[in-house]
């Protein structure tokens, strides 16, 4: 087992994504880690957050005691709405997604393949209850799909692989992978490492990645 540096914190990864989003982008954040991105948007950049349950212009979390049961995000957490936001129904919301109007979505992952296949909805365990939510719609409709994830599983297994063994959320849909160890671009020629955390070497990174990396 390699002795890896811890690399970037979750907030640092989220910050990198926030920096890479262009001003004015419409962005959907998945549940969990992706939600951290909202808190990292640099001053002076305006990003509009979409939540698929019917709100464009998600604001910061409400102050304690200010929560509204009927103002929540796709993760069922209370949110706020910015001035200039709007509410709409589910079919209109997914028209935004499927129709390619949302510019970016940030999702978690169980596995990403070197071709950009994403598996993030089911570990395919027999007897497990399948649940997909809006993930398949997002990866099929949004032109830029970014994954935010720990580089390996808790037990050290690679999450970036040659072929996903878990059921796919969508084929060839991931554009970029942000992990605690590196930022990796999915290109026609394979996985291209754009940046590595302090102390991470190409050799170390390749060791915990089950698909060939280009540096």
């Amino acid at each position, binding site marked *: 087992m390699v002795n890896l540096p811890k690399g970037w914190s979750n907030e640092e990864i989220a910050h990198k994504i926030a920096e890479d989003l262009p001003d004015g982008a419409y962005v959907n954040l998945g549940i969990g880690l992706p939600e951290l991105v909202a808190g990292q948007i640099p001053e002076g950049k305006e990003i509009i957050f979409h939540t698929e349950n019917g709100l464009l212009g998600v604001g910061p979390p409400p102050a304690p005691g200010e929560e509204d049961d009927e103002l929540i995000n796709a993760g*069922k957490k209370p949110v706020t709405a910015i001035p200039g936001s709007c509410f709409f129904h589910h079919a209109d919301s997914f028209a935004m997604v*499927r129709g390619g109007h949302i510019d970016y979505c940030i999702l978690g992952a169980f596995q990403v393949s070197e071709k950009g296949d994403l598996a993030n909805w*089911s570990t395919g365990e027999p007897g497990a209850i399948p649940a997909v939510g809006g993930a398949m*719609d997002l990866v099929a409709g949004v032109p830029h799909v970014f994954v935010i994830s720990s580089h390996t599983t808790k037990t050290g297994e690679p999450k970036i692989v040659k072929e996903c063994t878990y*059921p796919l959320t969508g084929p060839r849909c991931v554009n970029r992978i942000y992990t605690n160890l590196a930022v990796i671009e999915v290109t026609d020629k394979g996985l291209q490492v754009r940046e590595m955390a302090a102390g991470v070497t190409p050799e170390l990174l390749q060791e915990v990645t089950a698909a060939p990396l280009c540096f």
Partner: protein
Amino acid sequence: MINKIVPSAAEAVKDIFDGAVIMIGGFGEAGSPIELIHALIDHGAKDLTVVSNNTGNGHVGLAALIENRQVRKMICSFPRTAQSVVFPELYKKGEIELELVPQGTLAERIRAGGAGIPAFYTPTSVGTPLQEGKEVREFNGRLYVMEYGLRADFALVKCKMADRYGNLIYNKTARNFNPVMCMAARTTIAQASRVVEPGDIDPEIVVTPGIFVHKVVEIPNPLSENQLLKENRRYPW
């Protein structure tokens, strides 16, 4: 005179029959017509197919309907949430069926059903296990799956305000699936926190035109699913 207002939730759901397909609005705790669902539990219709994004939380609302063994099959996108206990248990025992549909496909299938569109093509689920058994077709060099419009015998929805014509407006993200479900059911039953006179809702801001709604019952202070969960309540009380 058109007057879709009925005096009680019990009266509103009385025609629901065994084996009916029922759409139930709501996403998580927002927009779920709890009082109508509880009236349906009291009513007792069984062998139902329920179309709803989730499977309910704790032991109230949709979860209680399932727990009361009135539901044969769920059509939904996300059957297990943090507070969903009833469905997972029955599912693992093989005592309830599940048709898993991606959330956007579910919304679009319901809208299509309501709009008289029998089938449409979507890129969602192509190349995944949920594509299995479905027709795949290429348009402009990209693959799409064919999905069918979805209709129901009844829809149960929750809204903020209604008039006797059935015009509805909603509250924030409690809107979610409710408007498309209104379109897709032969009989749409809405619970409204407030019933007002025709014209009190500005015609420019009506979200669900009355034509899609058949019965309205006023439930002035609807229960909060969140609050019921905190108090660990069960229905029937």
